[in-house]
């Protein structure tokens, strides 16, 4: 039973590791041993709006470590059929809303990896990358929305500056 691979990540994410599931073409069980013969496989992606597909050279990988195009078998006994693939940074770069990656091996089924490249950041607990919620953007909004408060704030600032200048002058003179 091939697994759907759908990701949502912020465009421009770096060093992303993908976990993909491979089954035998003639059965529903996980396919092991693909990393032993990498030359038999191929990988390529297309980004929405691009005119050409890009080939990704598959290289030997290590579980837990990122390298572009690196494929590593996770654990053929406990997680048979599961592989780690290092997504090239340029595949998930800004400039496109979606990328589709195909990893192919003979007699093997690996569902396409579909990546939604979004402007927000699912990994940001403060404001999921929503720009208008950043501190300085909120300050800007509040100051525009409450002009008299802003004038009072500025007046208090000017007063504080005058007091400081007077203090410094007094220090110099003494």
């Amino acid at each position, binding site marked *: *039973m091939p*697994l*759907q*691979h*759908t*990701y*949502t990540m912020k465009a421009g994410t770096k060093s992303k*590791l*993908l*976990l993909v*599931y491979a089954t035998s073409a003639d059965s*529903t*069980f*996980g396919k092991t041993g693909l990393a032993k013969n990498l030359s038999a496989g191929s990988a390529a992606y297309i980004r929405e709006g691009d005119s050409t597909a890009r080939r990704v050279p598959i290289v030997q990988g*290590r*579980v*837990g*470590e*990122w390298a572009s195009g690196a494929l590593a078998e*996770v*654990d053929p006994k*406990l*997680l*048979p*059929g*599961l592989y*780690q693939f290092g997504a090239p940074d340029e595949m998930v770069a800004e400039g496109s809303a979606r990328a589709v990656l195909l990893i192919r091996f003979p007699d093997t089924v690996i569902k396409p990896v579909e990546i939604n490249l979004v402007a927000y*950041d*699912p*990994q*940001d*607990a*403060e*404001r*999921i990358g*929503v720009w208008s*919620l950043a*501190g300085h953007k*909120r*300050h800007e909004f*509040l*100051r525009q929305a*409450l002009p008299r*408060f*802003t004038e*009072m*704030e500025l007046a*208090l*600032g000017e007063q*504080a500056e005058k007091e400081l200048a007077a203090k410094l002058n007094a220090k110099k003179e003494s």
Partner: protein
Amino acid sequence: MSYALKKGTTSKILLVYALDAADMRSGKMGLSSGIPDSSAAYIREGEAQVRRIPLIEGKLGEHRAGSFVEVDSKLLPGVYQFGVPDEMLAAGAETVTLMLKFPGAVIEPISIHLVAYDPQDAERLGMSALGPEGRRAALRGAFPRLTAKELGDAR
């Protein structure tokens, strides 16, 4: 099967579907934690080590790490409840893949996206910037001197 869960979610129960490997159409009934050669394991993105989850008996509607329970073989044949270990969903990884294996059954791997926001929070999606502290900080940051005056007057 794919989920989006907030990192650090605890006591999570998953509902999984087991197909009968013999016909690949009907739900596989009668699976339990005591079946020989059954296993559960997961890998978290970026980690080098696969973790095995000991399967144990459980009760429907109750969470215990590694518990595996058949839901209702007549009404929902092939549907099981699985208790996810809290450490599988802890902060520190963005995705995790879980596999449950039973002889004669096919269970699709479960892919979980661990996100920083809270899809179950109707008020502010778990964003701290929209909480009382974050909002106060925005107001005070916009008018620091008025805030100091306000707080001084209030004392």
